[in-house]
């Protein structure tokens, strides 16, 4: 019986090639998106797998109760906890503390920033980060590096025994190299420093301070056979003991609890100071995007199968009089959808291979996951379930035909079932596709706007060069000599990004309100170079820098209009000459007012800004280049760079390019564009199928109307109107919803594009255009058909 089902399924699919093509492509697209999500879910469990004893390894979490009685969970713990656990409780085999941070390392006078973990010796045995060569770092001022960091720091040379320098910890010797870290790991770092390396007074204080619970993480390996309950029971006791002596300011207290390594990823709750494990929320979002796409394809299947019900009705009648009961027929129809769906899985895998190289896919979804047999079993199971679900509705409808009705010999039998359902499904498909399209277009337009908009400062023909320890004054002098260089200025921050450093500034030395202000260091050339306008007062006075390029900070500052408002200083002219206190001891005088410009991303409105002369903070030079001479000038600039800093490659970048890269997230938009395109093509294919079957059943009517003198135009309209109506309804539903979806994204930006006629009109135009083409393609052919063929009597 089963073999019979499968054989019939294959023959049916083969016979109706358009139908099968539409469904296989649609289902494959939907399944592909689901596969991405499934792979990511599998990957989320890989996070826990490579640790040697993950079933008895725990991370301790801190539940902090705030003054408002809100409970907040932290992934981190006070550092002294580990010692108490190991010393006082026999069932604890090992404890490992980890402190994560970022710092700058100096290697051969190169300054390279990297993430590090400071770790206890047990880190190397409790967690599964294996060494490729060398020894674990246990002695003070030793470190183990990852292969990537080794290459970044030392090139191809053997890193073991090499020395790196840091400001905070002094010299550090490399004792070993990790194997390449698993991508699917909840900790990401370039180096593991031994815990005793953190030897400054401040760091030592942290290690005995029960009050600070955000510094580091505590991992505990229980002895084999130890009771987890007991461990879980003692944690609150320790917390109670520890917090008794502490007077908290902004919280009431905390308690501890254990988180098993086996359930660390995917995370069930939001943890402060969280590590890199993905959350259920992220995975659920991915899976629901996949399921929605798949649902669109399932709609097609339901739709087209019901549209063909006429041709299947007779078969149902025959089988019923041959003694088939309903469930047997349902089984047969569902076998068909399962065969189709398993076939679609194969095609989906091919699609998956095609989009695998996309950066978005690698970074966010499937990077570093192995497709093993379990995963394949899940894939196959998933596609079978999809097939069963897709087949269920049509199977119920089709198997419900009554033989006496469908087997009557008279022709002209009309079996149209579920017409309302089919129409609603088409409307739903196009509405979903259209909403996605409007939202995506708003997103893309906003990103493009941020990438190319006028920020109020000059961004074209400005070349930003990171200083990387080259003395600013020398570089500026050299650059000024190159023909084609118009201006050179310096800054601590590139505008149009996160805005840089900010602090509280007061108008009086002590007391009075303080205001949070962004402070950027510039030199006196900056204003002119970046085409900024002074509204009142003067530019920063010229400072004579000493030869090292490190002059003392100037007494004068510039502030923007917003700062004038924030300090409630009144008329700009009166502001000049007033003073501000950067801290208790530093008083500065306002030299001039700068017209407001957008120095952060468009997420924020313009904030108060202070510009002052602080050569120590300079990180970039801005070189303005004359219009004509760009090529030769660039060569000159690179030569200057090479002569001053032969070790480092030239890293200059056009300001406009920087803004573009910072704000246009092309990878993300591309991937989401792909999803939208999939949704749209699934909907169009479904429409094509529906129009095809409908026109086929009406071909005789077309013949009669033509014989009676209807024009091709009238016939196309007759056949198309029903479908055009559906598209219009879909548009009417999707426009307001799409507008809301787009606004939900745009609301995050203080300066954003509007969703106006061009977005909505463009999207609905595309919908009607593509939908219209799909409909017209079929109806035109039907309208051209020769009535003599369709009216020939059977």
């Amino acid at each position: 019986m089963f073999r019979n089902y499968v054989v019939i399924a294959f023959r049916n699919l083969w016979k109706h090639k358009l139908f099968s093509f539409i469904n296989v492509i649609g289902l494959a697209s939907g399944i592909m998106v689901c596969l991405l999500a499934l792979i990511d879910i599998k990957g989320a469990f890989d996070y826990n797998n490579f640790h040697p004893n993950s079933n008895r390894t725990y991370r301790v979490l801190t539940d902090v109760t705030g003054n408002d009685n809100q409970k907040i969970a932290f992934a981190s713990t006070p550092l002294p906890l580990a010692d108490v656990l190991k010393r006082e409780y026999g069932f604890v085999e090992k404890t490992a503390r980890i402190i994560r941070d970022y710092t700058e390392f100096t290697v051969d006078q190169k300054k390279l920033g990297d993430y590090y973990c400071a770790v206890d010796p047990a880190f190397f045995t409790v967690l599964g980060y294996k060494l490729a060569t060398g020894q674990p770092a246990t002695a003070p001022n030793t470190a183990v590096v990852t292969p990537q960091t080794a290459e970044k720091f030392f090139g191809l040379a053997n890193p073991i025994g090499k020395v790196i320098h840091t400001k905070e910890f002094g010299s550090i010797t490399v004792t070993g190299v990790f194997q390449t870290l698993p991508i699917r790991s909840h900790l990401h770092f370039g180096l593991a420093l031994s815990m005793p390396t953190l030897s400054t007074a401040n760091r030592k204080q942290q290690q005995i301070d029960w009050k600070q619970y955000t510094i580091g993480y505590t991992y505990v390996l229980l002895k084999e056979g130890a009771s987890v309950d007991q461990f879980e029971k003692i944690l609150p006791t320790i917390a109670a003991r520890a917090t008794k002596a502490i007077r908290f300011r902004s919280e009431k207290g905390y308690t501890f609890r254990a988180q098993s390594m086996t359930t660390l990823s995917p995370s069930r709750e939001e943890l402060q100071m969280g590590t890199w494990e993905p959350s259920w929320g992220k995975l659920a979002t991915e899976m629901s995007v996949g399921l929605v796409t798949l649902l669109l394809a399932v709609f097609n299947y339901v739709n087209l199968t019901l549209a063909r019900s006429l041709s299947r009705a007779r078969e149902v009648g025959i089988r019923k009089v041959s003694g088939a009961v309903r469930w047997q027929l349902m089984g047969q129809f569902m076998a068909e959808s399962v065969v189709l769906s398993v076939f679609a899985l194969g095609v989906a895998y091919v699609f998956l291979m095609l989009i695998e190289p996309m950066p978005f896919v690698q970074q966010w979804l499937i990077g570093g996951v192995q497709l093993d047999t379990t995963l394949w079993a899940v894939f196959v199971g998933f596609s079978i379930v999809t097939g069963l679900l897709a087949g269920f509705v049509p199977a119920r409808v089709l198997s419900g035909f009554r033989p006496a009705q469908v087997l009557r010999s008279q022709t002209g039998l009309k079996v149209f079932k579920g017409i309302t359902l089919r129409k609603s499904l088409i409307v739903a498909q196009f509405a979903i596709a259209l909403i996605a399209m409007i939202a995506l277009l708003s997103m893309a337009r906003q990103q493009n706007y941020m990438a190319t908009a006028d920020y109020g400062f000059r961004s074209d023909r400005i070349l930003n060069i990171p200083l990387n320890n080259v003395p600013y004054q020398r570089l500026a002098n050299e650059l000024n000599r190159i023909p084609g260089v118009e201006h050179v200025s310096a800054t601590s921050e590139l505008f149009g990004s996160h805005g840089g450093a900010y602090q509280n500034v007061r108008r009086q030395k002590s007391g009075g309100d303080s205001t949070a202000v962004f402070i950027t260091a510039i030199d006196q050339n900056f204003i002119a170079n970046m085409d900024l306008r002074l509204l009142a007062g003067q530019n920063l006075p010229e400072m004579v820098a000493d030869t090292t390029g490190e002059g003392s900070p100037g007494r004068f500052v510039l502030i923007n209009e917003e700062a004038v408002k924030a300090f409630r200083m009144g008329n700009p002219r009166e502001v000049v000459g007033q003073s501000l206190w950067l801290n208790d001891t530093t008083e500065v005088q306002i030299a001039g007012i700068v017209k407001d410009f957008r120095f952060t991303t468009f997420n924020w409105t313009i904030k108060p800004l202070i510009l002052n002369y602080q050569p120590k903070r300079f990180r970039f030079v801005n070189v303005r280049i004359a219009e004509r001479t760009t090529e030769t000038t660039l060569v000159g600039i690179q030569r200057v760079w090479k002569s001053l800093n032969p070790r480092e490659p030239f890293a200059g970048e056009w300001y406009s390019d920087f803004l573009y890269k910072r704000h246009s997230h092309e990878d993300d938009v591309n991937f989401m564009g792909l999803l939208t395109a999939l949704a749209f093509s699934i909907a169009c294919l479904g429409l094509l199928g529906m129009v095809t079957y409908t026109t086929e059943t009406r071909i005789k009517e077309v013949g009669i109307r033509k014989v009676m003198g209807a024009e091709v135009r009238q016939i196309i309209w007759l056949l198309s109107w029903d479908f055009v109506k559906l598209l219009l309804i879909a548009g009417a539903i999707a426009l307001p919803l799409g507008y809301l979806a787009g606004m939900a994204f745009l609301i995050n930006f203080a300066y954003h594009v509007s969703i106006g006629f061009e977005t909505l009109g463009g999207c609905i135009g595309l919908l009607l255009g593509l939908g219209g083409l799909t409909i017209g393609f079929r109806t035109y052919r039907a309208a051209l058909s020769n009535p003599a063929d369709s009216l020939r009597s059977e």
Partner: protein
Amino acid sequence: MISLQNVSKYYPAGFGKTYVLRNITLDINEGEFVSIMGPSGSGKSTLLHILGMLEEPSEGEYLFFDQPVQKLSEKRRTELHRNYIGFVFQAYHLIDELTVYENIETPLLYKGMSSSERKSRVAELLDRFNMVAKKDLFPSQLSGGQQQLVGIARAVASQPKVIFADEPTGNLHSDHAKEIMDLFKKLNKEDGVTIVQVTHSEVNAEYGNRILRLKDGWLESFQVPTLERE
């Protein structure tokens, strides 16, 4: 074996009802060959469908092997279809996606026969109907007469007690029609299968040993069993 008592069939139409069959009382014995005749719209097909349990009568009682059909469960009725009843249609109604072999096999599948049993049964039928060479062809590759042969082979595959035939030769040339009618006759004679056919043609009706005439839903007369039995 078949007994109708005052069976009527009507459909609601506006405020009243339209009668298709009125007060039919009728008995058919095992081994009979009955022809139902009448003009278009006289209710022949409806009567056949009621007899074949595809439709239910609106009034009256139907006994099939002394069981009241109206009271049978859906499951029991399906059982009867599997084991006691075969159908032959004017439009053949073969399944286009299945070969000749598979079409004949279909009722056996639903009967739950084992694979080897099915094989021998279908082989025997193919042999008997001279269709061995055509067993792997699809219906669209056969002539009308051949398709109807397959239809009959399918109907007798499960060795039913009664075959209901709805104008089995309606779409055929007279040569083919004669062939098919001879086959029915043979099945009736040699295998003892009861046959009830609906037909327009007096010639074909004569193959039966009793003719029922329907007009406007009334059963007009009994044809006294003829003596022209060979």
